[in-house]
Structures are given as C-alpha cells and as structure tokens.
C-alpha cells in the first residue's frame, strides 16, 4: 500500500511555477528521496505534502487522507523537520521536549517515556538541562528529529535535514532514519546531497519544478544501458568540451570540476576515438577512463533530456 500518493501536483506563485505536474507514490515503511538543486521545488512540494501550503491543482493523499482538503486530519499522523532546526534555542533540551510533547497532547507517563526515549535516541542523556542554543549542529539536528517524532508519526517529512551538519553527524542521522524506516515509518526526505540518495529505497529527481527521473538508484542508472560514461582528463577541458560535443558518437558532455564526463555509445574502440580527437587538437597529455556512472551523471543526463524536451515543446 502507498503511504503517500501525489498526482499531478502543481503549485503556481503568480506566474512562477514552483511545482509542475508532480506525481509519485511512496510505499509504506520505505525511504523516499526528493532530490534536486536549490530552487528545484523540493521544499515547496514537501510543504504542500505536510498541509502547510495549498496547491494550485492536483491531489495529495497521505495515509489515505486528502491533505489538500483536510490538512488538520493528517497532522497527527505526520512528523516534520526542517533544516532550520525549529527548536526554541532559549529553552533547555528538556523544556523543548516537554513543550513539543505537550503540543502533541502527551502527558504523564506517556510523556515521560517518550522524553526518555528521545534523549537516548538523540544521545543527549545527562544534558537535559543544557540550553538548546548551546548545542552543536549535530546534537540540535538529532534533538529536532526527536521532537518531531515524539507522537510516533507514521509518516515523517524531512526537509534538507542534513544541511550544515558535519559528515559524522550526517552518518549518525541516517542511521536513525534507517532504524525508523525499519520500524515501519514512511520517510520522505529532500536533499541536494546526491550521496544521501544511497540511503533511499526510491528517489525522485526534480528540476525546475518538474520530475525528471523516478525510481531506485540502480533503476535510474539503467538510462545508460548501451552507453558508456567516460571521464576525460586533459589540460584544456573547455576546448575539449567544445571538440567532443561536436563528435557524432558523443551523446552528452558535461564538466565535473576540471574533468569532462562523456556519455558515448558503448562500442569497442570508443576510448581510442576520444583520445584521437584530443591528440588531433593538441590537448595532451590526456587520459580517458571508463567509469561507473554516478547519480550525478544520471541527474545531469535527466536534466538535459528534460530541457531538450522542453525546448522542443517550446519550439513546436
């Protein structure tokens, strides 16, 4: 059964289309990643899914509840956490937990139990009376997560939860998310860290408000079936980009740092052909390696395909 069903969701702010015809489903107990660059519409989408924002058109169902029609009904079932660590920095750890517990309607024994659980989960035992503002980013982030799941929500929305947190804390955070998913909580997370997609069962790539790719990581990499991704190292990568793009066997060329990634037909001798182009233009010494395509390659590929499609549509 799908915990989250989004279909043809569109959100316009005057003439700007923030979310454009977005559709996907998230299975119960799975981790779903909404990936994309800044401004791709991820945060707008997640805020509509939580009932914080109205939609222009389309439908959203969370655990069978129509969020757009009954935003209040869905609230008791979901947890929501943003990158901004929405805690009261001028309250202690315990006061934050008690406040959110109170807001969620917990009291007495139930509140005490959840409070103890949250402290353990965030690793904040013994620091109950520390002022929240004095905690470092990783602690705050885990406390914010704890606060947002005090009421045992069945669906958890995380908007850029790992922004500005050190790598070790990010790992710890993802371990917590994995554990929750293991207990049957459905998690929808937005991020622009592509490596975090590895923790997701399925991901959706968003670009300019549109969904450009949807599936598990291995599924997404299937787009390169029959193709090979080559990484080119050479002195003048700008010139190389221009040269390679002009070749008929190169389908896509993009810059990664000071290197190029080329998507080419997976045929024998293709490496040599690229090398020959570089030597002809005196762009040596050069190295061309076949690499396993990363999610970033997939992302760029998907964006280019989408942009090309949009361009054709615009022309027609």
């Amino acid at each position, binding site marked *: 059964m799908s915990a989250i069903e989004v279909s043809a969701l569109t*959100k316009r*702010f005057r003439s700007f289309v923030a979310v454009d015809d977005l559709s996907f489903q998230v299975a119960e107990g799975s981790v779903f990643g909404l990936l994309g660059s800044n401004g791709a519409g991820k945060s707008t989408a997640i805020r509509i899914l*939580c*009932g*914080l*924002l*109205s939609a222009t058109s389309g439908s959203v169902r969370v655990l069978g509840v129509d969020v757009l029609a009954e*935003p*209040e009904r869905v*609230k*008791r079932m*979901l*947890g*929501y956490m*943003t990158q*901004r*660590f*929405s*805690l*009261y*920095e*001028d*309250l202690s750890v315990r*006061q934050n937990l*008690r*406040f*959110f*517990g*109170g*807001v*969620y*309607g917990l*009291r007495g024994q139930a509140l005490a139990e959840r409070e103890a659980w949250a402290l353990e989960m965030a690793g904040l035992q013994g620091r109950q009376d520390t002022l929240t503002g004095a905690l470092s980013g990783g602690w705050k982030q885990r406390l914010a997560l704890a606060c*947002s799941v005090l009421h045992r929500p069945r669906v958890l929305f995380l908007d850029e939860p790992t922004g500005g947190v050190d790598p070790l804390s990010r790992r710890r955070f993802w371990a917590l998310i994995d554990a929750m998913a293991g207990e049957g909580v459905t998690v929808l997370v937005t991020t622009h860290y592509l490596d975090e997609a590895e923790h997701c069962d399925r991901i959706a790539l968003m670009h300019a408000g549109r969904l450009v790719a949807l599936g598990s990581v291995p599924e997404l990499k299937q787009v390169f079936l029959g193709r090979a991704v080559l990484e080119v190292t050479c002195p003048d990568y700008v010139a190389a980009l221009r040269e390679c793009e002009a070749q008929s066997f190169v389908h896509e060329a993009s810059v990664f740092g000071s290197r190029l990634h080329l998507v080419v037909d997976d045929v024998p001798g293709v490496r040599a052909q690229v090398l020959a182009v570089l030597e002809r233009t005196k762009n040596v010494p050069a190295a061309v390696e076949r690499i396993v395509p990363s999610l970033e390659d997939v992302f760029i590929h998907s964006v280019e395909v989408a942009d090309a499609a949009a361009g054709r549509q615009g022309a027609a």
Partner: protein
Amino acid sequence: MRRILAVALKELRQAARDPLSLAMLLGVPAMMLLLYGYALNFDVKHIALAVQDEDRTAASRTLADGFFTSGYFDRVRDVPAGTDLARLTELREASAVLVIPRGYGRELAGGRASEVQLVLDGTDALTATTLLGYAQAIVAELDGRRLRRTLVRLGGREAAAIESRPRVWYNPELQSTQFLVPGLIGFILMLTAVISTALSVVREKERGTMEQLRVTELRTAQLIVGKVLPYLGISLLATAVILLTARVLFGVAVRGSYLALFAATLLYLVGALSFGLLVSSFSDSQAMAFQVGAVSSMLPAIFLSGFIFPIRGMPHLLQYLTYAVPTRHYLIVLRGVVLKGTDLTPYGRPMLYLALYAAVVLALASVRLARREG
C-alpha cells in the same frame, strides 16, 4: 487545554530565561510614567515677570504686588522706563512684562479709566494663554476690590458684589498630573502589550518555530490563548507597578473599586494584546513588528484618545474615528474609577466599546493567523 497550557508555560519559561526583557516589560512602564509624569505638566507656575513701573505710586505697587502674591508669578527684574522690552523676552530673561504707565495712580484717583499693559512672550502659545488668564483674573479681582472700596467711601454703605465661588470636584487644585496619569497608564499599557505580543509571535516566524507548530495539531485558537494568557498576566502585573508608582510619586490614588479597575483593564488588555497579534500577522521581522506595533498603538493612544488633546476640539470626522481607539474608552472608565471613585455603573457604554474592540480585533487576528500560506 493541555496544549494551551504547554504554550503558556513555554512563553513564561522563555520570558523567565530573558530577565532583561521581563524587567523591561514590568519596569519600563513605571519608568515611562516617571518620565512623562514629570515632563508632562501643564500647570504653569513661577512665571518670570519683569515690572516696568513708570508710575511709582501706592496704586501701582498694589497692582504689581497683586501679581506676585498670587503665587503664579516670580518677580525677576524691575526695569526702568524706556527699556527695550523685546530684548528682555528675546534673551528669555522674562516671559512677561507688566508695564504700568506714568499717571496710572493719578488717573485712577481721578475716577478716569486707566490702562496697564502686559507684554507676553507668545512663542509658547499654551503657556501664554494660561498666563493671560491668570493676569486677567488678578486684575479683575484687584479692580473689584478697589471699586467696592470706592463705593463704600462714596455711599457709606457696603456694596455687594457678585462673587463667583467655583468648586472643582475630584481634582480641586486642577493638577494636571491627576488628569494625565490615568491617560499615561492607558497609553503605556497599549504600547507594551502590543509590542510584547507582536514580537513574541514574529520571533517564532523568524526562527521557523511557527512553521513547526503549524504541522502539529495545535489549533490557532490554542496558540493565541496560550500566547495571550502569560502576557495578560505580565501586563496586569505591570499595571499594578504603574499604579503603585503613580501613588508614590504623584499621589494619584485609586478612589474607586479595584474590581472595576481590574475588569476595565482586563478588557482593555485583551484588546491590546489581540491587536499585537494582528500586527504580528502583517510583519515578517521583529524590527518591522516593533515599528508597526509602536506607531499603530502609540499615535492613536496619544492623539485620538483624549489623553492630552480634548476630543471635543477635534474635527467631526476625527471625533468619529476616536470611537475605534480603545484607549479613549478605557480612559473614560479609568479617570472615573481612579479620580471620581465611582464603580462601573455609569460606564456601560465605554465598557461595551472596549469589549466590542477586543472581540473584533481578536477575531481578525485569529483569521489572519489561521490563514494558510499561498
């Protein structure tokens, strides 16, 4: 109920965590009262008066003494005839000059009309008007006495004079503090109540905690009540502090029932705190909330409430507008209860207006705060 309690408790904890703000909420009103109470004084006394007595007779001295024994004028200088009077006022050595022309005594004794001149510094029109009133009263009083004496001399019989004996009730000495302090209380409460609630909501918007609260089951009404309750308590405490300050410093004691005072203040504060919430729904930053809150609460409370400027003197349109200013209604009740010592019986109408204001503004604020974005 539990959720309201959680919000109220949180607000109090945050307030307690920030003793400076709390002290400001409680102390600043009293300090403002101290400041404004002494500065805002319309009683004109000890006016610097110079005398140019060109007559130098018993009659002219009687006239001059009449001014100084009144207690309103201080004799700063005696200037000889021909002095540049304009210089005197320009140099601010005197606010007024009494000029008694040569022959004043002789003319009077001869039964002919006689003139004296009072030169006033009119740059401060308010003071000059008051001063002119004093001077005319003093001269009229002296003249009356003189006429009676003359009549006695002529007819040998005591002539009766109409004597007006005004009795001013509730504020016999017409001290302006008695009148201004209740006004100040209304003004100060409005200002602090609006700003404190507006800031507390906008702070949550700025820090993103508001969005967090909006995904919980916390209803807008619960949030509003939870936020207003603690500030209502703090503001009532501030009222007590102000009343104590007013009593100690200005001798303004509450003559009426404290229950009546409490009821009116409660209604007034609910309106003011709701207005703060309304302001918060229009502001996205604390700086903006502060400015909008200060201007929109202060200006009407000063200019359209009858605090300083009499409502009867306003253009008709403005007079109607004052009905929408809660301070106007609160001041009517407050002045009555504090100065006259009455209960609420004669104040049904202002109380009704206060309740109406609170209800309308609270409803507006609820609608605005409950609105979903986009």
